[in-house]
């Protein structure tokens, strides 16, 4: 069963393509796996009140986030008979155009991997206690809110 630990989930700053390659490398050799599904969330340069978002600063309630993620992963691992799950989320500053979320699922059949990944992303948006402070170029900010 997958075990979620604080220092394997949260990453300081943006998630790099090299990090993603390492994660894929570490999971992709199980010979009974047929498909991997990956979602990458990226900080988007939204325009809010005519001001472009330059970066988002993320904070979390670590202990609660780990509990929430452990619950999600345990439920989805069982529901979809997953071979692997990995979640990484950035904390601190992530600039527009950089990656802040990495979700990875593997399963014997592609539909299980794809459906599990999609469901996990939706649950992370709704249930993970993480807050994003959108920072504009004039150093003002607003607090992001996920909508369903």
């Amino acid at each position, binding site marked *: 069963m997958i075990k979620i630990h604080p220092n394997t989930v949260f990453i300081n700053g943006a998630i790099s393509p090299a990090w993603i390659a390492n994660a894929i490398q570490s999971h992709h050799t199980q010979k009974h796996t047929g498909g991997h599904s990956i979602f990458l969330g990226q900080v988007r340069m939204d325009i809010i009140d005519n001001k472009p978002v330059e970066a988002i600063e993320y904070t979390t309630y670590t202990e609660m986030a780990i509990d929430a993620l452990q619950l999600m992963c345990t439920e989805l691992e069982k529901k979809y008979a997953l071979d692997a799950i990995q979640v990484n989320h950035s904390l601190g500053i992530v600039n527009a155009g950089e990656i802040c979320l990495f979700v990875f699922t593997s399963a014997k059949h592609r539909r299980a991997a794809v459906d599990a990944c999609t469901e996990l*992303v939706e649950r992370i948006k709704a249930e993970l*206690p*993480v807050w994003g402070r959108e920072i504009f170029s004039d150093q003002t900010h607003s607090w992001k809110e996920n909508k369903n």
Partner: protein
Amino acid sequence: MKISILAFGKIAEIAGKSQWEEIPVQDTDSLRKKLENDFPALQNMSYRIAINKQIIHCNQPIQSSCEIALLPPFSGG
């Protein structure tokens, strides 16, 4: 005995602090009333309360040993 409060995101900004102690109150409705009196900006925003990392969905009694967290809408991902 006081109760310990953790505040996150916009609420930490409004309160000007992310951690403090409150004098004991009976339940979460009383705590909301006290907080919204101290920090009127909370009246205009939605937020949830977690007791010992569990989000509560209705008024709950507060023991002094509880860890209370004030959670603005999530925005991860």
